[in-house]
């Protein structure tokens, strides 16, 4: 069974030009997918073709190029809506990424709905992008920011949820799959609890959308955000999905071209969704590239990707547990997405990563933009291997061997 999965993986890997390259004379083993994924030829070709054949500004042009660009751009929106099962493509707003998505909600919905006496509830395992915007806004608007703590095993500690989530809570914002612990959080339970107190729900899908089938209607999130560059798409683009009535009543974020219906010297009227939130020339080629990434992922099959990563994670969890001095952060493989963060004795994660790099293995080292979760474990940083559809059990073996070497070197 592992053999067949690896076969398909090898075939897929061949579609990613960068995986053909060598690092320090070794085959590149790319295990930094949670930071950013690699891009298949299919995605690169679509963007190249756009620039070579149809490049023009969108929406406002009548000429052929502009019509082609507009069609390509809006078709990508329809594809994104289908990919996460949004009721309408008007609910797909293109951003620069997860970070801009959350900031957009903070600046618009947040500014219109939060004030002294209100509470926003996040968790201790959030990425900085789901902490800092709320801290900034809190300091301006005077609401209270609360955190759901985590257990020593790296799951949300929900024992006090009924205190933390209360009638004052206006928003519950949490990460779908943690980029440090791997933990996949219990969305139905959390959403249901939020509904009971009338709080809105924002889900950070940066680490879930690339790796598992997502249905925003089933998840029932009010807002859902993710980034293109982690899901085989280009940099510079991401998506904010929102429930229609919320998006309709929210004030705009940035002002400029395309987001207006009319502008006079005294006042402006806003355009309809999704344009109200897309001021200025958008990331046209990038949106089109993201559309191609969604096609690619759909062809591969999100179910298959999820199963493949589950298999790899179980395999890696076992293999890494055997490495002397290695301590895995977060829960058992069944409860996590395709990534494993760990420490190795006292060796600084940067040193681990540097040693692995000499063997062509790319992992991430640091706080992964999630200092509070590291604070929980009283560590400054960790090393993280994160998988994607093109990784194999052989990659995991190479990782483990190189880690053993690092342990000897610094031991």
């Amino acid at each position, binding site marked *: 069974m592992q053999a067949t999965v690896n076969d398909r993986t090898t075939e897929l890997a061949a579609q990613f030009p960068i995986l053909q390259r060598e690092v320090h004379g070794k085959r590149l083993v790319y295990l930094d997918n949670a930071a950013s994924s690699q891009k298949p030829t299919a995605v690169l070709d679509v963007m190249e073709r756009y620039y070579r054949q149809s490049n023009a500004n969108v*929406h*406002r*042009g*009548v000429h*052929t190029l*502009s*019509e082609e660009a*507009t*069609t390509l751009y*809006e078709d990508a929106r329809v594809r994104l809506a289908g990919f996460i099962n949004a009721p*309408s493509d008007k609910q797909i707003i293109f951003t620069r990424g997860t970070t801009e998505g959350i900031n957009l909600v903070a600046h618009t919905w947040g500014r219109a709905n939060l004030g002294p006496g209100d509470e926003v509830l996040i968790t201790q395992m959030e990425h900085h992008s789901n902490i800092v915007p709320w801290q900034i806004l809190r300091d301006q608007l005077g609401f209270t920011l609360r955190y759901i703590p985590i257990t020593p095993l790296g799951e949300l500690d929900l024992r006090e949820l009924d205190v933390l989530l209360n009638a004052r809570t206006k928003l519950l914002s949490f990460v779908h799959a943690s980029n440090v612990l791997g933990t996949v959080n219990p969305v139905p339970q959390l959403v249901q609890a939020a509904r009971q107190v009338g709080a809105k729900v924002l889900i950070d899908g940066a680490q879930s959308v690339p790796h598992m089938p997502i249905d925003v209607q089933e998840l029932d999130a009010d807002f859902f955000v993710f980034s293109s560059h982690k899901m085989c798409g280009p940099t510079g683009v991401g998506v904010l999905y929102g429930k229609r009535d919320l998006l309709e009543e929210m004030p705009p974020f940035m002002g400029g071209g395309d987001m*207006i*219906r*009319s502008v006079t010297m005294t006042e402006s009227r806003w*355009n*309809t969704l999704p344009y109200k939130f897309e001021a200025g020339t958008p990331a046209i080629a990038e949106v089109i590239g993201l559309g191609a990434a969604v096609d690619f992922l759909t062809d591969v099959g999100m179910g298959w990707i999820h199963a493949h990563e589950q298999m790899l994670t179980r395999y890696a969890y076992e293999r890494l547990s055997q490495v002397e001095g290695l301590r895995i952060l977060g829960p058992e493989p069944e409860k996590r997405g395709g990534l494993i963060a760990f420490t190795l004795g006292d060796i600084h994660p940067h040193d681990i990563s540097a040693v692995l790099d000499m063997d062509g293995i790319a992992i991430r080292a640091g706080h992964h933009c999630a200092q509070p979760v590291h604070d929980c474990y009283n560590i400054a940083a960790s090393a993280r291997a994160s998988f994607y559809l093109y990784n194999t059990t052989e990659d995991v073996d190479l990782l483990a061997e190189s880690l053993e070497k690092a342990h000897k070197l610094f031991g």
Partner: protein
Amino acid sequence: MEALYREAILDHYKHPRRKGHLDAPDIQYHDHNPFCGDELTIELKVEDGVVVDAAFDGRGCAISQATASMIMEEIVGLSVDELKTWDKQYILDMLGIEIGPVRLKCALLSLKVLKAGLWGLEEWPE
């Protein structure tokens, strides 16, 4: 050139039918297309559910104005119920040209105004 501006469209554009205003319209609706600045008002007199008089006024591109004029030519004598069945395809067939996604808004402005007037809708139903 014929692909977009066939003779009939140019004719309706240069010689619009029923352009102007009614004395006491039963239905009057105005809207515009923000991307082009096309403006359109449609006025109808309705008796027993049937359109008995109609007029349009507006300014804008040949596509939007010719479409409005073409609609005017057809509309009198039709029932409101029948008008409500008109859809995007009906208008495009009437125009008889291929139209890209951007100009589509020009072509459909009349229909939008008409439906909004008939149904009292604020926004284009999807």
